[in-house]
């Protein structure tokens, strides 16, 4: 009997370990790795998402780790390379990820005012005298990153509509700030004459410092674009994907989840789908850019 037990116990443990769908079996690691794009200052961005990672870790029973990329386009290049299981994508990176990485859109964060999208805005200083596209001629422009609609493609679209076919034709200089809030500070400080970014970051900064609204004005605004879409890789166990989706969508009904949402300045998450990226595809089509052949890699040294 003892001999039988000695053989059976290890055998049971062996079967138990290999029969449960585990991340270890899938990826060779014991945690979920979630990627973030540097839409805000990277330190602020990590601080903002940390409570969510802790919440998911507690509920999933799997450690959730965050990794932030230094550039927007990197999330496409490094997603598989770094073994990410999911990521919060921006407007254009989301569309690219769905197309190139075949990830599955899961949920989108909803802001306190009930929005789950953001508009691209072109901002100028009120005292700059810039009031129309033609006034931008010979000026310096601060873009966010080539892999964003609000921070790059929208101003491109705006200029194209005004009859300008290339950036060099309009600006004396242009450069990429790398984050949305940096684009605001570049214009505020007079380091750039105009800049583009998403309105949610601008509104957030104005909420914290009302004087920003006295100094800046919005020159143009894009249609709403999906913001911060959370996507998961499709080869994650379906059970895990389902659980994560349910957790995110149900956060507002849960006391602890509500607390995390408040910390993040959100009211909840809403379901996401491939169709959310239709406005992105539309704007790209208008400029004559294809999703598959778009060079989204940014050289920060634009000046």
């Amino acid at each position: 009997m003892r001999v039988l037990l000695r053989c059976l116990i290890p055998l049971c443990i062996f079967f138990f370990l290999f029969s449960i769908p585990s991340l270890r079996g899938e990826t060779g690691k014991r945690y979920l790795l979630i990627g973030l794009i540097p839409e805000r200052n990277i330190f602020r961005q990590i601080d903002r998402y940390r409570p969510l990672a802790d919440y998911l870790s507690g509920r999933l029973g799997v450690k959730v780790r965050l990794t932030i990329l230094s550039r927007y386009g990197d999330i496409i290049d490094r997603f598989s390379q770094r073994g990410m299981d999911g990521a919060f994508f921006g407007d254009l990176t989301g569309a690219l990820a769905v197309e190139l990485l075949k990830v599955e859109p899961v949920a989108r964060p909803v802001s306190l005012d009930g929005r789950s999208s953001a508009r691209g805005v072109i901002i100028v200083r009120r005292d700059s005298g810039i009031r129309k596209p033609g006034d931008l001629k010979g000026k310096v422009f601060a873009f966010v990153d080539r892999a964003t609609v609000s921070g790059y493609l929208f101003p491109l679209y705006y200029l194209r509509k005004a009859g300008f076919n290339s950036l060099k034709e309009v600006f004396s200089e242009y450069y990429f700030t790398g984050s949305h809030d940096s684009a605001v500070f570049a214009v505020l400080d007079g380091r750039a004459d105009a800049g583009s970014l998403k309105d949610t970051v601008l509104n957030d900064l104005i909420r914290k410092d009302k004087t920003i609204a006295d100094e800046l004005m919005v020159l143009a605004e894009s249609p709403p674009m999906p913001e911060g879409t959370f996507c998961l890789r499709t080869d994650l166990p379906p059970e895990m994907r389902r659980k994560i989706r349910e957790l995110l969508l149900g956060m507002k009904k849960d006391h602890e989840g509500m607390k995390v949402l408040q910390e993040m300045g959100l009211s909840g998450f809403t379901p996401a789908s491939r169709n959310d990226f239709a406005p992105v595809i539309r704007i790209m089509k208008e400029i004559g850019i294809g999703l598959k052949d778009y060079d989204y890699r940014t050289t920060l040294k634009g000046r």
Partner: protein
Amino acid sequence: MAISNQNKVKRSFWCLAFSFFLLLAVVSTPPVPASAGDKVRVGVVFSADVPYYRDIHRYFIKTLKEKGIYGKIDFLVQKPHPDPIAWSNALRKLYVYDASIIITYGPGTSETVKYEISDVPVFYAGLYSNDTVLENAHFAGGVEYTLPVTSLLRYLRKMDSVKRIGIFFFPPERTSVEEARKVQERCIALGLEPVMLPVHKSSEIGEKLRLFDLDGLYITGSAFMLRYFPEYASEVKRQKIRVVTSSGGLEDKAMLSLYSDPFLIGRELSGLLVGYLKNGRKGDFKIVRRNRLVFNYAISKEMGIDIPLELLTEADEVIR
């Protein structure tokens, strides 16, 4: 004897004729322009001999060389002490030396031009622009810069425990006064406590630093402050006062500098001068709206003050 008299008459005739032609030649010659040889004589006056104005001048010369104009100009450069009498004397020297064009750097000399009686065209550069600070009628052209003072205060406020801000300015430099007033107004809007600190002589900088208990210091774009503030930099460090400035050239003394790009100022100025020399074009007044943000991390470290990392990421340059 008769022959000798005839010779005398002949000699007198030729002398008279020669004198007549000489007089004719002198009278018919056009007035000599104030130039050395065929070069145009351009007088340059710095409001103080400080790195920022030297940079503007360097880029101005560089652009003139690129445009092939430099060789046609004879420069006379004056770098007086930042003092109204010295500015006036420097300008008058250039008038005496028949400068046909005068260029002024900084608010001091540019303001002084208005009190001189002369029709020599003057171009100014490197002044803080507050709408129409200088009456343009006095000048043939000029390059000013705008600077969002709120940005500097906003960054200053982000540093730990900054509440009371001293604003240094030099009253004879009107643009410095205008800037100080604007800073005062913005401080109040941002919930900071401004302390206006006018100085008339360099020793007053030290006195005021000792007299007022300040958390932060704003140095306006003043030639006087640029020249004398560096002498009190160690006192500021000792008192752990965070210094911000709207002027270039103090990057190694101030914790934060946001200033207009001297290269662009120099380039615009050269454009104005070339336009004047080629077509006699006057009345162009440019405003440069391109700034550089420099953080001096070494100073904050030395003073034991933490600068939020996110501020460092915004800077065009971080001094370590």
